[in-house]
């Protein structure tokens, strides 16, 4: 076992604890009664709803897959028509990728991470709850379009020009663009929660080298979302703008380029594969040691592999575009990166195999273990075919054939669905009174394992025989009937396995909604989530001295449950958790957390309504809903940032402040992550701008001969941006003492926001005055897109400034209680910096070309 033992003689708090302390803790963390439970935001409830919704989407998309398999079971079949088939494969792929795979991993993060970290909850529980409701509503509405014939039919990657208005009239494609764009926002909200939670709510002593591997994988997963998802958000934004207003980003006839969509989509889409796989790998790294009853071999190697995979996955996007005519040397770079990523993936696989092989006694062959072994087998095949399609000449032959369909199902189902089912069986005792049946579990595994391989292995062959993807039927004379019939039979065997699981789940899953007391550590695992817990998570927050504390720290479970460790009570009389330093996990302050509420739910409902009504062009009602969403969000935020309540004792002679602002606060960290998202989006825009220039340099302006505003406009706009920064800096210093109001601070905040508004306004006016129009060509579209991107940030800063002003005048913002101002100011600084970069690009680049 690694590391050293704890000193059980020096526990932070004396036991037995005072009477009434536990009851107070239970009262603070109790769910609201009856139907009002849906206003609860505790991860133990929200996480279950999240997983339930994601699994529902898995089942729904699975039904669509069965319909497709029936249609393809033999040649010249007329079971369903071509257009419906196209809609079904589009919704199947979209649902599996956007509504199942990513959300279910975030859901597991929400439910498992606080337990693994022995935290009361993650730092932004309402944000999690908002993300869940937004996803549930948006997802259900998107999926329901299949029942009305309104689903998109351009494939889950929605390539233009097929998805431009000319070839995809109607609202079908818009449902995808606005619906998925909206759900991506929910995914980013989840990622912010996970990053800040992993880095700031670890228990004392849990340094980076003691983090559970699922935590590491979720950290890399969330970081990848931050950098990958903005690309698809920008792409969907551009395509929707082109469809609605005719700005030609992708239309080659107007100097746009459809390949730009592919670059942006796959810059997101390839990391997406690893975004799905890495958390699953983290889950495997948690289950394998338990079943082997020994620490994982190569912990540090796996951490390195997770980080390396996260990075390398961003250098692979063009391997989805090998056949698009990109120069061969560039393809060579991407081919090399595609092979390089196999190294860290291989490191993980060998670590798991080594741990299994060196199990103490014998590796336990329980249902979770079977799914892990199935995963290793299937994922290894998917990985090997992945190396095959990374070889350019082979890919040119296999591209868009069923070989690729087989490859990515082996990777995704093997790499994610099998570990997920292992997870269901492994962690089910943590949230349900009854365990799922081991006997039925074995049936489930074998049905799924055999069914999967029977369904998908023949697709390698049908692909090599020339069967293309996305065909709704094929002539009998092609000779693909037998292979397709075998695939169809396999699909139904696989579905039968899932059905047995669902039946078992209905029969045995029983959750006690009043308390979370369930079976304690039935697998004899070593990590913290198996400590005795309740709705408040653990009774006290332990000091961690090992990667497997339950194995290495004697009496840990008893001492934690007795309240002998930190924070055994509700010290402030409210929900709270300990915030620790990011590297060494030293207690820094006590975060007072919000309780149940409705504002975040209304915010989710109205935000969803805004996007969906926009889709069906009900603009007026959509705008009303948008305004209501902003209002609900402001109400939600108004309840945050509670006043400082001095210092409280958490045990061991440690007293922590109950309020924190500045770079140490969780709010500051969340804003930084949000700014990274905005920055990624903007860098993607800069790439798009430069890319379109390489495609159509002739439409870029020539100084003096075509629309290019005078440099004085840029100088004015840039000066205003700088003045905006200055005003916010001065406002920060002018914040009043607690209990007073500062008019100068208010005026400076208003001045700062107005400077930013004027800065971006001047840019729009200058371009319009010069005669440039966004619908004219790709150059005009990109220039105005830059204004839109900076403009939306300026609008957000304006709203946040108004919010800070309201708090200032109501005595809720001062030099001490200042988080609402800091958040607005941070975003203002970033917005100004982005604006300055925009001026440099829009005014500088064409002049540089001269």
């Amino acid at each position, binding site marked *: 076992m690694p590391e050293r033992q704890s000193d059980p003689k020096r526990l932070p708090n004396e036991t037995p604890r005072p009477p009434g302390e536990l009851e107070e803790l239970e009262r603070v963390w109790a769910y609201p009664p009856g139907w009002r439970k849906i206003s609860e935001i505790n991860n133990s409830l929200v996480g279950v709803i999240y997983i339930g919704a994601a699994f529902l989407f898995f089942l729904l998309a699975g039904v669509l897959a069965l319909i497709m398999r029936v249609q393809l079971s033999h040649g010249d079949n007329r079971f369903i028509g071509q257009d419906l088939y196209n809609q079904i494969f589009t919704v199947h792929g979209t649902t599996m990728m956007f509504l199942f795979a990513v959300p279910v991993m975030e859901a597991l993060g929400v439910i498992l991470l606080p337990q693994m970290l022995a935290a009361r909850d993650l730092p932004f529980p309402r944000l999690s709850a908002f993300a869940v409701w937004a996803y549930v509503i948006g997802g259900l509405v998107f999926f329901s379009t299949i029942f009305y014939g309104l689903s998109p039919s351009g494939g889950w990657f929605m390539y233009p020009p097929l998805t431009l208005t000319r070839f995809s009239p109607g609202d079908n494609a818009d449902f995808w663009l606005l619906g998925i764009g909206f759900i991506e926002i929910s995914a980013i909200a989840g990622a912010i929660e996970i990053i800040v939670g992993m880095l700031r709510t670890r228990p004392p002593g849990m340094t980076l080298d003691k983090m559970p591997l699922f935590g590491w994988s979720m950290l890399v997963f969330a970081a990848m979302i931050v950098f990958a998802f903005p690309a698809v958000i920008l792409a969907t934004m551009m395509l929707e703008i082109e469809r609605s207003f005719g700005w030609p980003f992708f239309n080659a006839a107007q100097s746009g380029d459809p390949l730009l969509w592919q670059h942006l989509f796959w810059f997101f889409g390839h990391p997406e594969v690893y975004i799905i796989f890495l958390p699953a790998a983290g889950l495997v790294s948690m289950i394998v040691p338990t079943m082997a009853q020994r620490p994982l071999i190569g912990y540090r190697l796996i951490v390195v592999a997770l980080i390396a995979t996260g*990075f390398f996955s961003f250098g692979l996007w063009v391997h989805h575009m090998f056949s698009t005519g990109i120069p061969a*040397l560039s393809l060579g770079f991407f081919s090399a990166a595609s092979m390089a990523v196999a190294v860290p993936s291989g490191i993980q696989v060998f670590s798991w195999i080594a741990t299994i092989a060196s199990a103490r006694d014998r590796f336990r062959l329980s249902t979770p273990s079977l799914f892990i072994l199935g995963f290793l087998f299937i994922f290894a095949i998917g990985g090997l075919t992945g190396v095959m399609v990374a070889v350019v000449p082979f890919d040119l032959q296999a591209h868009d054939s069923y070989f690729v369909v087989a490859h990515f199902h082996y990777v995704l189902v093997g790499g994610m669905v099998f570990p997920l089912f292992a997870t269901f069986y492994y962690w089910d005792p943590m949230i349900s009174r009854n365990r799922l049946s081991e006997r039925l579990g074995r049936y489930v595994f074998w049905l799924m394992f055999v069914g999967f391989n029977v369904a998908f292995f023949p697709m390698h062959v049908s692909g090599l025989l020339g069967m293309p993807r996305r065909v709704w039927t094929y002539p009998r004379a092609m000779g693909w009937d037998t292979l397709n019939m075998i695939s169809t039979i396999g699909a139904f065997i696989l579905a039968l396995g899932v059905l047995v699981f669902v039946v078992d789940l209905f029969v045995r899953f029983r959750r006690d909604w009043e308390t979370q007391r369930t079976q304690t550590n039935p697998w004899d695992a070593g990590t913290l989530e198996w400590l005795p817990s309740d709705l408040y998570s653990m009774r006290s927050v332990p000091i961690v001295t090992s990667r497997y504390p339950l194995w290495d720290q004697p009496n840990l479970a008893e001492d934690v449950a007795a309240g002998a460790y930190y924070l055994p009570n509700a010290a402030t009389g409210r929900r709270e958790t300990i915030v620790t330093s990011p590297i060494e996990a030293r207690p820094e302050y006590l975060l007072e957390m919000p309780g149940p509420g409705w504002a975040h739910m209304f915010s989710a409902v109205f935000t969803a309504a805004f996007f969906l009504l926009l889709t069906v062009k009900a603009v007026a009602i959509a705008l009303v809903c948008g305004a209501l969403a902003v209002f609900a969000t402001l109400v939600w935020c108004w309840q945050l940032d509670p006043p400082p309540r001095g210092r409280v004792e958490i045990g061991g002679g440690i007293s922590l402040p109950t309020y924190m602002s500045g770079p140490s606060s969780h709010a500051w960290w969340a804003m930084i992550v949000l700014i990274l998202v905005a920055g990624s989006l903007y860098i993607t825009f800069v790439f798009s701008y430069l890319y379109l220039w390489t495609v159509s340099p002739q439409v870029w302006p020539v100084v003096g001969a075509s629309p290019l505003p005078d440099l004085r406009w840029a100088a004015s706009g840039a000066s205003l941006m700088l003045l905006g920064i200055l005003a916010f800096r001065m406002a920060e210093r002018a914040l009043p003492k607690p209990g007073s109001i500062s008019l100068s601070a208010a005026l400076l905040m208003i001045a700062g926001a107005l400077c930013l508004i004027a800065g971006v306004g001047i840019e729009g006016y200058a371009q319009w005055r010069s005669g440039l129009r966004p619908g004219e060509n790709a150059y005009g579209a990109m220039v105005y897109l830059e204004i839109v991107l900076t403009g939306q940030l300026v609008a957000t800063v304006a709203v946040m400034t108004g919010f800070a002003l309201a708090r200032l005048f109501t005595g809720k913002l001062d030099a001490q209680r200042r988080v609402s101002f800091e958040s607005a100011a941070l975003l203002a600084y970033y917005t100004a910096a982005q604006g300055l970069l925009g001026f440099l690009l829009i005014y500088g680049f064409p002049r540089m070309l001269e």
Partner: protein
Amino acid sequence: MSRASKAEHPRWSLTTIIAFLLAGPIVWGLHFLFVYGGHTLMCVLGWSSEPQIIRASVIVAGGAALALLVFIARAARRWRRYVVESDGDAALSAEFQMYATLLLILLSSAGVAWSSLAAFFIAPCQTLR
């Protein structure tokens, strides 16, 4: 070194630790961006008639990235002193960070070298169809 002086050993800031930890992959990413973007740009600017210059640029970029990675690895080894001089959790934590940094640099070096090899075998600016 006494216990008291060990405790006084300066701690590296969060930014420094993250910068070191991610230095390898970041250099790999910048190198990748440079060779992919640079090659595309040179082709657009009409340098396809000078394939040797493009090839040499890619190879030089690879060499420079590898040299930078070696430099960072040497700097990261300064952690070793901290590991030796610290005790308890701080030593384990520092050792972990140094180990992870060096391994990531190793993997990134392999990625850079592997990408650079393409320039030896594939002609610049030519498409496959």
